[in-house]
């Protein structure tokens, strides 16, 4: 694509992002109900959020390098997982995915490195430095 096309593409993406934010904001003003009994605002809000996410992902792929996209996605997923699965599981998965994606290590060696590094980090921070970390779901 030529530069005009690229610029136009970015402009459209920016507009879509604005639209998503606007829709989310407007939908948030409607009665949203509960998850088990969604009201009129629930779906548009979810749609706005999803649209914003997918456009942001498009931006990440277009503007930044792929590495940035992977890191951000992994961080977001880790945030969702952290308190449910504990630091050791989350950290091991996080490192495994990132190492596998970014380093020349294969998925097998990445997994070992991930587990080992997560365990060591957990020991260092929690036991030596006294940081309160939910290591496993059952220890918190």
């Amino acid at each position, binding site marked *: 694509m030529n530069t005009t096309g690229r610029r136009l593409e970015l402009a459209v993406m920016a507009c879509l992002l604005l639209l998503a934010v606007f829709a989310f904001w407007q939908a948030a003003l409607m009665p949203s109900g509960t998850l088990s009994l969604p009201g009129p605002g629930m779906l548009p809000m979810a749609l706005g959020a999803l649209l914003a996410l997918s456009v942001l992902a498009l931006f990440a792929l277009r503007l930044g390098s792929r590495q940035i996209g992977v890191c951000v996605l992994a961080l977001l997923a880790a945030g969702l997982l952290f308190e449910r699965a504990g630091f050791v599981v989350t950290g091991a998965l996080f490192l495994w995915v990132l190492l596998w994606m*970014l380093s020349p290590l294969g998925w097998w060696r990445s997994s070992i490195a991930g587990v080992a590094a997560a365990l060591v980090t957990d020991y260092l921070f929690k036991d030596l430095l006294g940081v309160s970390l939910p290591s496993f779901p059952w220890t918190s």
Partner: protein
Amino acid sequence: MDVIQPLLNGFAVALRPDNLLYCLIGCLWGTVVGVLPGLGPLAGLSLLLPLTYKLEPASAIIMLAGIFYGAMYGGSTTSILVRIPGEAASIVTCIDGYAMARKGRAGPALVVAAIGSWVGGTASIVGLMLFAPPLAKLMLQVGPAAEFGLMLLALLALSFVSGGPPLKTLAMVLVGLLIATIGVDPITAHPRFTFGFIQFTEGISFVAIALGLFGVSEILLNFEEIAMVKAIRPTLRSLVPKLQDLRDSAPAIARGTVVGFVFGFIPGISHVVSTFVSYAVERKLSREPEAFGTGKIQGVAGPETANNATTGSAMIPLLVLGIPAIPATAILLSALMIHNVQPGPQLVAEHPDVFWGLIASMYIGNIVLLVLNLPMVGLFVNLLRIPYAYLAPGILLISMVGIYSVASNSRDIVIMGIFGLLGYVLRKAKFDPAPLLLAIVLGDRMEVSLRRALTISQGDWWILAQGAMSKIFIGAIVLLVALQAAAWLFGFRRKLADLPENPK
């Protein structure tokens, strides 16, 4: 299962003089938009959509379906004679079709394209006729929960399968779903995104959106892309089929029929993809694959058959599930819904005149097109000589009158213009607006079925995975997402690993 009696009743509907006329108009207009580069079946459908509001449902769908499959016939003409695809499904035909025309074999190319189109089209109607009623019976058990799963599956499949980058398609689907929420909430009647305008309480007119996105925006795009063309003119004599040509292309036509019919079920741009697949198959099976590209008759016969063979099978999801798999059938769906005919499993039982009338009219229409296309090829080619400066204002005028006639409201003309500009910008930025249209059509029903299901289950989301049908749909969704994610991850890693300056 007895198909003879209902089919005869269908012919009684389709052979009524008025319906014959609508079928003829549809086929002719379809051929015209097929021939004209830049105006595709979508634009053709949306331009005539407003006119069907006054017709009865059977007549409306007979005419619109005629445009849909008529365009597949017309597309080959421009491909062969000018090497400009009249519409996307005829891109492949340009390769060997134009090469044949250069060698003075335009006649045979047009003939096998027309015959292949007829064979593929007719065979796929037989498939539609045999498969649709039993499938409809099966689908009658689908409740709101499974219906939601089905629609989600359709939209996801569309995002992943249709040529473009999945994220862009997904964004378009989401925008479409958001547009569908404009108006009063279907369950609680709470106004959404109306900003106090009473005009918006019923949502934005689908016809205005369709006409804008596909009719107007194509006209705008064409200003930059169309150059005047010189067509190769076939002699009338060369249009008499020769036995050797028919013998050469018969196997290609048979294979094209199968390829097209199978691909018709796939959401997205099945009719386009099927032509590429058919061309690849023919080249693979040929004893002289290197001759493809230099005017091989199989390279015309296969793809041209395939794109017509998708027309019947693409109707099956529409008529049986009420779910359009491709944008063209989304417009057919909206035409039926305007008349309160809800396509879906009940259609065959509740509106036999629509279902069987459509099938019968498709048999008739395919014969009409076969007869029309060959002798009138010269006439259609002349269409290409109309300067665009006359054509564009004319078409815009027709769309203006059409959209006004729907609701007698000039606001719709403005909306059409806005969506025309939107469609133009989106396409320029390489966003395909077709998924947006599909999402608008499905949006309301998707939300209603989800919220109904949740009401039935008193808020338990697991209802979406209960029942055999729901399990099948959910399973398919999970499989689709997993496959896509796996393909994406592995492809991603490969790309990253290839980078030499890979940061550690």
